[in-house]
């Protein structure tokens, strides 16, 4: 929704806009709600013009229903599945990470969340032949480690290609993150940068680092900003068929951070942990939320110099 401003449609000149504002019609919603006859009398604008303006604005700002079978066909054509490097994990996830979805990986300190993301970056570039944008909010991105994974899996000849297909954005507070997401959206819409035409994976590591400082206390904004952020991420995933991977923390006794509001945001949630009495590089992944699959499935992975792989 937006304010009524000049040139939204041909009949809306500066003069008309200022008359409408003085009559209390400030946003498009106000214009659609008010009784046009009364408004015509108050502002002494011709009634016919007001009807035309309303019709044009409705056409511009409404959404239109889509037939489900058309929607299904479009989804089939535009979606894809991104396989992870671990086969058993792919079975658990019914193929891998899906595009047009927000997937969340949550874990305690040093449980392997960033390693999972880096491994997936290499996987997307080499297996799906697409690009990745990695948004780093906590300084945990290590290009050295990404190069190590890439080189051990695919050798030195592909190293440069892999590294050039991953772009890194640093955003250390929530407003920078929103700006970064907006920039990505604009670049995808304008289609001037070929990198963004083949963008398939967007990683945000980690989302808690930027949301924590705004939550709680006397701040009125915090919750709202968190929800705004979640909307932006979901829109990016849905509108551009991206796979959005978000990293979250686990605190206390296996509780995922950011509370109930955030728990509704991801379509799919994985919990990664280091099971006791296992070797130091073994991790266990549990699917705790999915909009498509049965939850509760577990699998074990190992973290090596090749990134993550199945643990046998």
């Amino acid at each position, binding site marked *: *929704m*937006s*304010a*009524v*401003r*000049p040139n939204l449609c041909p009949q809306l000149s500066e003069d008309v806009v200022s008359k409408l*504002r003085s009559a209390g019609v*400030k946003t498009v919603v106000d214009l659609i709600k008010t009784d046009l006859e009364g408004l015509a009398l108050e502002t002494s604008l011709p009634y016919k013009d007001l009807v035309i303006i309303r019709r044009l604005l409705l056409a511009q700002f409404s959404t239109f229903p889509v037939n489900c079978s058309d929607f299904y066909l479009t989804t089939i054509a535009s979606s894809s599945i991104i396989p992870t490097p671990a086969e058993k994990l792919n079975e658990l996830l019914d193929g891998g990470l899906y595009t047009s979805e927000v997937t969340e990986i949550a874990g*305690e*300190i*040093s449980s392997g969340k*960033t390693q999972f993301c880096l491994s997936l970056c290499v996987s997307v570039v080499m297996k799906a032949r697409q690009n990745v*944008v*990695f948004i780093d909010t*906590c*300084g*945990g*991105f*290590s*290009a*050295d*480690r*990404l190069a*190590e994974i890439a080189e051990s899996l695919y050798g030195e000849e592909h190293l*440069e290609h*892999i*590294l050039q*297909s*991953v*772009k*890194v*954005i*640093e*955003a*250390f*507070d929530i*407003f*920078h993150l*929103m*700006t970064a997401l*907006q920039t990505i959206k*604009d670049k995808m819409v*304008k289609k001037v940068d070929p990198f963004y035409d083949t963008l398939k994976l967007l990683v945000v590591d*980690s989302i*808690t*680092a*930027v949301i*924590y*400082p705004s*939550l*709680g*206390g006397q701040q009125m*904004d915090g919750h*709202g900003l968190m929800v*705004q952020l979640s909307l932006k991420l979901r829109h990016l995933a849905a509108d551009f068929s991206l796979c959005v991977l978000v990293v979250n*923390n*686990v*605190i206390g006794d296996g509780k995922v*951070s950011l509370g109930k509001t955030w728990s509704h945001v991801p379509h799919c949630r994985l919990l990664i942990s280091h099971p006791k009495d296992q070797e*130091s590089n073994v991790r266990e992944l549990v699917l705790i939320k999915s909009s498509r699959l049965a939850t509760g499935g577990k699998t074990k992975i190992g973290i090596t110099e090749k990134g993550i792989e199945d643990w046998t």
Partner: protein
Amino acid sequence: MQSQRELCSFPIAPSHKSKLTSAGFLITEDLKHLKPSELSKETGIGLEECLEILKLVCSESVDGSKRNEAPKPAVSALERLKEEQSLPPIITFSEGLDNMLGGGVPLCKITEFCGAPGVGKTQMCMQIAVDVQIPSQFGGLQGEAVYIDTEGSFIVERLVDIAKATVDHCNEMARLEGFKEGEITVESVLSGVHFYRCHDYVELLATVHLLPEFIKKHPKIKVVLVDSVAFHFRHDFDDLSLRTRLLTTMAQSFIKRATEFKIAIVLTNQMTTKFSPGEDSRLVPALGESWGHASTIRVILYWEGQKRWAWLYKSPSKKESRVPYQITMGGVRDIVTSPADNSNDQSDDEPSSKRQKVS
């Protein structure tokens, strides 16, 4: 097209945001054609604030990099790799520790040393404050250090001991390799450490807030040490959610400065006891789990028998490992492997003041 961004996603004060919304301005496109005076009249916000808001919202689309606090543009991982490789880490004089950390304490990252009292956290900080000043001909950074002391455990005489040992080592290397001696002296080392003493958490937060100005005036600064970050946050804090907010804000501020000025941030943390039902109680780093996610690299220092060990618990690029180390007159050093050599030069003789600490 770039204009369809909601105004509430900008860093505008909440009271202004509500005034903008009630006046009907919801997205950036709505504000594009307005002058500050018009905006002020419509919303009732003061003229100067309107100017600020318009600058914030509209200059975004022009050239984000002109603004002070604008986020950096995206760089490819290849460029990041070249950047990382061009920034040498700070060596700690303990080869085991340096190898464990991947060369030393890295720049542009937050490294946290956690440990029980007496294990050597302050010694580690002082060692790093001296090591950052090693001249570049010896592979050092030739930088300066900011030392923020919250506990009062900083003793200048100890820093002098460590500095002397480092200076002697450098002069020895200079003699062997034919360089000029005297590039680094105890006086130059002491003058290269900028010392702050913070008495409560407000002073600490204020110091951190003013760091950017200070670093801009002293561009040689390459490391900021805080010993310890836990001290003031563990006492007199009834409101735990406030503590989490302050700590996470401080952590984000640190990582911003680390990447902006290409410096290393070293923090020390204390240990606390965790009780779990059905399990033995154990020592874990203090300040809670939400703080644990804040540091990029976490090293836990602990005792095992008579030896001190460093355990790399969290790292983005190195795997978990443990190395033993010792604290000598000259600072942090490796443990000499053969026990027979122990009596000779690398004497395990700690200064008596340290030995009295309760562990």
